[in-house]
């Protein structure tokens, strides 16, 4: 099950942020999440199923997400994941710290290049 290194998660927490951010727009099921992230990132980011499902369970455990039982248009059982208030707070905090980190990295790279 060799993974393409191009598509690996950048660093811990990145996948979670992307999931939280995606679910902030609207509740989605698992496959929709994969497609959404892929589409929004212009195919740059490919979420591995092997990482997605453990990550979803982890986030459910932390209380950032909640799952909802539903039935799809075709009558199949489905599970929709949606953001909780705790998840929203976590996302905002993480985004702030990420932005700081990106700014820091950008500056360091700029100095190194000059």
């Amino acid at each position, binding site marked *: 099950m060799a993974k393409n290194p191009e598509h690996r998660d950048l660093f811990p927490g990145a996948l979670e942020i992307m999931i939280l951010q995606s679910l902030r727009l609207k509740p989605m099921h*698992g496959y929709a999440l994969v497609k959404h992230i892929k589409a929004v990132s212009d195919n740059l980011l490919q979420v591995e199923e092997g990482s997605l499902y453990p990550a979803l369970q*982890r986030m459910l455990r932390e209380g950032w997400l909640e799952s909802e039982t539903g039935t799809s248009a075709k009558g*199949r059982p489905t*599970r929709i994941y949606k953001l909780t208030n705790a998840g929203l707070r976590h996302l905002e905090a993480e985004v702030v710290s990420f932005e700081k980190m990106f700014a820091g990295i950008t500056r360091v790279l700029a100095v190194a290049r000059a």
Partner: protein
Amino acid sequence: MQILSRIFDRRRRYDDLSVSIQEHIELRAEELMEEGMPRTEAERTARREFGNVTQIKERSREEWQWAWLESILADLKLVLRRLKKSPGFAATILLTLAIGIGANTTVFSVVNCVLLKPLPYPNSGELVDLSLNAPGAGGLASFASGLQLSPSMFLTFSENNKTFQSMGIWTSSRSNVTGVGQPHQVNAELVSDGVLQTLNVPATAGRWFTAADQDPRGAKTAILGYGYWQRRFGGDRGVIGRSIQVDAQTREIVGVMPRGFRMVDNDFDVMMPMAIDRSQLRLAPFGYSGMGRLKPGITPAQASADVARLLPLWMDSWSNGPGTNPHYYERWLISPNFQLLKKQVIGSVSNVLWVVMGTVGLVMLIACTNVANLLLVRAESRQQELLIRSALGAGRARIARELLVESVTLGLMGGVLAVGVAYAGLRLLTAIGPADLPRLSEISLDGGSLLFALLLSVFSGLFFGSIPVFRYARARAATALMGNSRTASASRSRNRSRNVLVVAQVAMALVLLVSALLMIRTFAALRTVDPGFSDAAHVQTVGIWIPDLLEPDAEQVTRTQNEIAGRIAAIPGVTSVGFAGGVPMEGFDPNWDELRVEGKNYEGGEPPLMLFNYVSPGFFGAMGTRIVAGRDFTWDDNYNLRNNVVVSENFARDSWGSPAAAVGKRVRQFTNMPWQQVIGVVEDVRQHGLDQPAPAILYWPAMLMSPYTRPPTIDGPRAVRFAIRSNRAGTEGFLHELQQAVWSVNPNLPLASVQTMRDFLSKSLERTSFTLVMLAIAGSMALVLGVIGIYGVISYSVSQRTREIGIRLALGAQKSELKWMFVRSALALTGAGVVIGVCAAAGLMQLMKSLLFSVSPLDPVTFVTVPLVLAVAAMVASYLPARRASAVDPVEALRVE
């Protein structure tokens, strides 16, 4: 609560997960179909893209689990299910382990309580025993723990040392208590100032002795032991201030010591101040145990050096009376040999205990190898399963973990059973163990023992589990699934681990059997030793003491003893009676002093010390000690003070060449004393136990002129032990009549430590018989386990080689040859084990030297017998499966798949 709800919640989470993943795959498949892919291909592609569903599910679920713990629990469930399926296998292993771990826990409890735990006093590491080395003092220093202190030594040491916080001397005796119920004897301790301060345990009621109590002209006081206080006074706190009569002396009870407080290793009833009278002190006598509490940071060696420089001061400060040379003792070469009190308490028993501990440890190792062997066989039958699992991606660690979970589970289950075994074993051990085992009362199954059992369970589980792990966890798919059933015979490497185990087992069994047989030979050798008295079971002994306050006149004491002897002789069934200062193997020597033989010159002018006993007429007859030459004392000799003595045969031979030549010769104690004529020679007596050489003994009459008073006055032992020969010895009725006979002379005389000579004899054999029993049990367990091990290996190899046997038979092999082939392989393994074992035993038996008697640690009989026994056992153990091999039907064997 949160944990519970999480566990209940879990099922819903797992459902959600399955639904999500199912949905994911189906949606993807639909997409692919929309792109024009046929349904089956689309579904397959979607699934492939998704990856390993089970693995992803598993990893997702782990988010809800304590992953590590739960997968171990899952392994555990599997293990238990498998064990339930083969109860015979489980029972064999558990029983082996329960006995092995149980035996080790039992012995460990004893070792821990006796050898390892500190003595029950505050800061007991500071306590030392004050004994002295005195190689020049002859037997006086050798029979007990070196030379003991004299009161004058104690005063000099205690007042001038620089290394002790406190020190004291003490001595034990039996005392008569009257005025509390019937007159009875109690264990008494006489203690000097400093003893209680040194032990530093506060009284539970009342107080310690004060300096005023130690004043010889002050008030007479006593402290009670806890047990005696409970038994005689019902634990009444009002006893403080009450009076008791101890040896006819009225004493006020001033304190009670707490439960569990012992004088070093003695349970005592009454403690009394020694009340040393400075003005009466001389250099001698040396009969007092000393103890001290070191200043912090001082070692016993430093304290010894400190006190060594005080010895000249001691000799300068005191004398043995006018005209004696106080520096005489320089010839004794006295030097302090202080050691930690604990070491002194434990004494030589540590030897026995470590041997026993080593022995059961070895049995445990043998048991573990047996269990490892069983597990190997089992792992072999699971080889296919293990290989499939590893082919499916289970890592080495994963498989190793499962095998180890199984073995540690077995170990722990065995450990639980073992605690029961240990509990029973401990009761058995304290029942059959030597009664003089120090700290016996402290032995219990405590937290330390349970921890030991737990650790032993886990480690033995890891140990016997790791052998199949090494063998199988690294088995890779290369050899995998190769269909080993098609190979004609077992591969060499497959049997190697089991063979090594069997060789180890045989070697260890050999060591144990050798040690057991050496002990049996020691015991047998001791049984043939003539103790110097006969028919011990029919010699009743009883101690009677007549204190000064009851009968001040020394001659009257002997007459009273004579009268008691007469009354006892009148009891029906008594054939003879006599008394003496002490009987053999009692653990008490009446006296040691110097003795001069007429016409003999002594190097340095001083003769060596010799053991003295004081005996009544008829004592030798009652004991069954043969008179080799001359005659016994008579009462007439006695009361007329005829200056007669009897000597032991070895002394007669040493001094005059033969027993007959000794009669009529003369000896004396000090040069200012009259000569004593030897009137008889008696056979040698093993005074200090069957395993100790018989000392030279001089027997004085029961009444004599004491050389220790000036002018010499009539004296005789006040504490004597009667020896009574009767077929009724030891019976209830006889003891009652004995008591009545004594009380008819004086109703205030109690009977002390009523024992037959056989009791003393078996006590002297106790340590040997205890070691023997332990080693014999361990040795037979080792033999049985070893035989089972050999049987298991041969029988397994027969079952594995059925096909080979079939081919051989089909090709015309003789059945007897086939049988021999298997027996031979068993003998080869045994032979290898024997060679290793003999070498190990030859080295290890040197450690047992001190426990052996007239048997060499390399005893040829033992070293020939044991290998032979093992070889025969191996042949029998392998013959049974070998016979099965020869009964194989070639047609059947070749058809078997």
